[in-house]
C-alpha cells in the first residue's frame, strides 16, 4: 500500500516527495479525503503560514482521524506538525487536528532576543524513546525554518533550544510530527524518514 502525501497547497512538495522516492517509498497525493482509505500511512507536509491548513476541511480531519483509529501512522512535517496541535496563534481561526491538547506559539527568541524566524541547523535532545529517532545519535543536527512551535509536552519526542526549549518532534503512538525538515537534514533526516517507513511497513500486516 502507498503512503498518502497530502497536498493542501502550502509551499512545494518536491523535496518531501523526492526524499521519500529516494528511500524507495510508494507515495501518492490523495485528491479527496476518501482516497485515504487506500493509504498505509498519511503525511501532512507544509511550509509557510498556518492559515494554509484551512483547506484541510472537516472531511479531511475526519478521514485522518479515521486513519489513526485504523492503525495508520501519521507524520506531520513543519506546519504539518503544528497542525497536530489544537491550532496556532499564527492563525487562531484555523483548527488543528487537536491530537495534542495545546496550541503552537510564536518563538520568543528568549532573553538573548535571537532573530525569529529560527533558520538553520540545530541540535536535538531526546526526552523519551521514540520510534522516529531509533539509531539517531544524541545531539544530531537537523534543519529548521519556522517562527512558531509547540511547547514541550508529554508527547514531545525531541527538544531543540532556541532562546527557549520547544518541541522539535512529537510521537504519541502512531501520531508523529517533526518541526524540522527531515527532507533537508542530510543523512540524519533520511534516517528519521527511514524509521517512519519501517514503522509503516511493520503495520501493514495489521492493516491487511
Amino acid at each position: 500500500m502507498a503512503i498518502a502525501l497530502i497536498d493542501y497547497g502550502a509551499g512545494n512538495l518536491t523535496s518531501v516527495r523526492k526524499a521519500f522516492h529516494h528511500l524507495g517509498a510508494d507515495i501518492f497525493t490523495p485528491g479527496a479525503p476518501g482516497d485515504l482509505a487506500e493509504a498505509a500511512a498519511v503525511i501532512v507536509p507544509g511550509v509557510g503560514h498556518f492559515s494554509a491548513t484551512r483547506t484541510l476541511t472537516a472531511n479531511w480531519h475526519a478521514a485522518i482521524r479515521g486513519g489513526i483509529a485504523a492503525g495508520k501512522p501519521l507524520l506531520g512535517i513543519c506546519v504539518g506538525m503544528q497542525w497536530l496541535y489544537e491550532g496556532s496563534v499564527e492563525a487562531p481561526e484555523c483548527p488543528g487536528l487537536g491530537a495534542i491538547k495545546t496550541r503552537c506559539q510564536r518563538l520568543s527568541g528568549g532573553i538573548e532576543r535571537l532573530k525569529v524566524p529560527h533558520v538553520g541547523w540545530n541540535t536535538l535532545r531526546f526526552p523519551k524513546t521514540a520510534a522516529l529517532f531509533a539509531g539517531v545519535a544524541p545531539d544530531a543536527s537537523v534543519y529548521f525554518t519556522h517562527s512558531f512551535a509547540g511547547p514541550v509536552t508529554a508527547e514531545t519526542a525531541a527538544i531543540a533550544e532556541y532562546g527557549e526549549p520547544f518541541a522539535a518532534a512529537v510521537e504519541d503512538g502512531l501520531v508523529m510530527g517533526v518541526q524540522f525538515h527531515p527532507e533537508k537534514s542530510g543523512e540524519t533526516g533520511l534516517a528519521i524518514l527511514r524509521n517512519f517507513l519501517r514503522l509503516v511497513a511493520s503495520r501493514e500486516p495489521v492493516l491487511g
Partner: protein
Amino acid sequence: MLAKRIIACLDVRDGQVVKGINFEGLRSAGEPAALARRYNEEGIDELVILDVTATLEKRRAMANTVRSVAKELFIPLCVGGGIRDADDAAAVVEAGADKVSLNTAALTNPDLITRLASQYGSQAVIVAIDAKRAGDGYAVYARSGTTAASRDAVEWAREAEDRGAGEILLTSIDRDGTKIGFDCEMTAAVSRAVNIPVIASGGAGSFDHFVDVFSEGRADAALAASIFHYAEHSVSGLKRHLHDRGIPVRQ
C-alpha cells in the same frame, strides 16, 4: 544550539561550474552535481547555485543543472541569478530548489518579493544585495554590480524583510574576489537592522575571516566559492577551526 551556516556557492555557466576549480580526484571537476556531492560529503550546510549564463536560451539548461544537483542532495538548495519573474522562480522551484535568490528583479519589481513569499513562504525567498561603501553608508548595485540602484543596503534590507524576504544574502562588491576578508562592518550594520538571517559574502580568504564575520560581523551564515576549491581549505577544516574558537557549527 543553532549553528552558524557555511554555504558553498557554485557559479554555473552552460551547465559547468566556472570559478577556479582545483579539486583533486574529482573526475569531472566542473560538473555541478559532482562538486555538490563533494561539498555535501565534507559537511556543507547549504548550497547556492548561481546562474551566470548570459543568454536566455542557455538559461533553459539551468533547470537540468538544478535537477541533477537536487536529485541526490538532501540539504537546502538555493538558486539565483537571472530570476526575473514568477515563471523563472517556478521553473527552479519545480526543478528542486528550496529557495530562490532575487537581486536585480527585486530592485526593479519589489512586489515580486511579496508575490513569491505568499506563494512559497518567506523561507523560500532570499533577497541578494550587492553593495559597496559610499560615504557613511553602503550603496546598492544592480545588474551584477554594474548599475547603481540609488538605495542604501541597510534600508533596502529592511524593506525586503517587510515585503516578505526570509533571508538576506549580502555581498560586498569592495571585497568580492580580494580574499582580504568579509566586510564585517557592513554585515553587522545590515544584520542589526533586520530580524531575518543575513548571509555574508565576498572576501573570504582564510578561516579566520569566517571567525570575524560570525563574531564582529554578526552574520548568521557565510557564503564562499573559490576558497573551498583547495584542499587546505576544506569545509570540514573550516568547521573544525570555527568549533575550536567557540563558534557553533554543525559537525
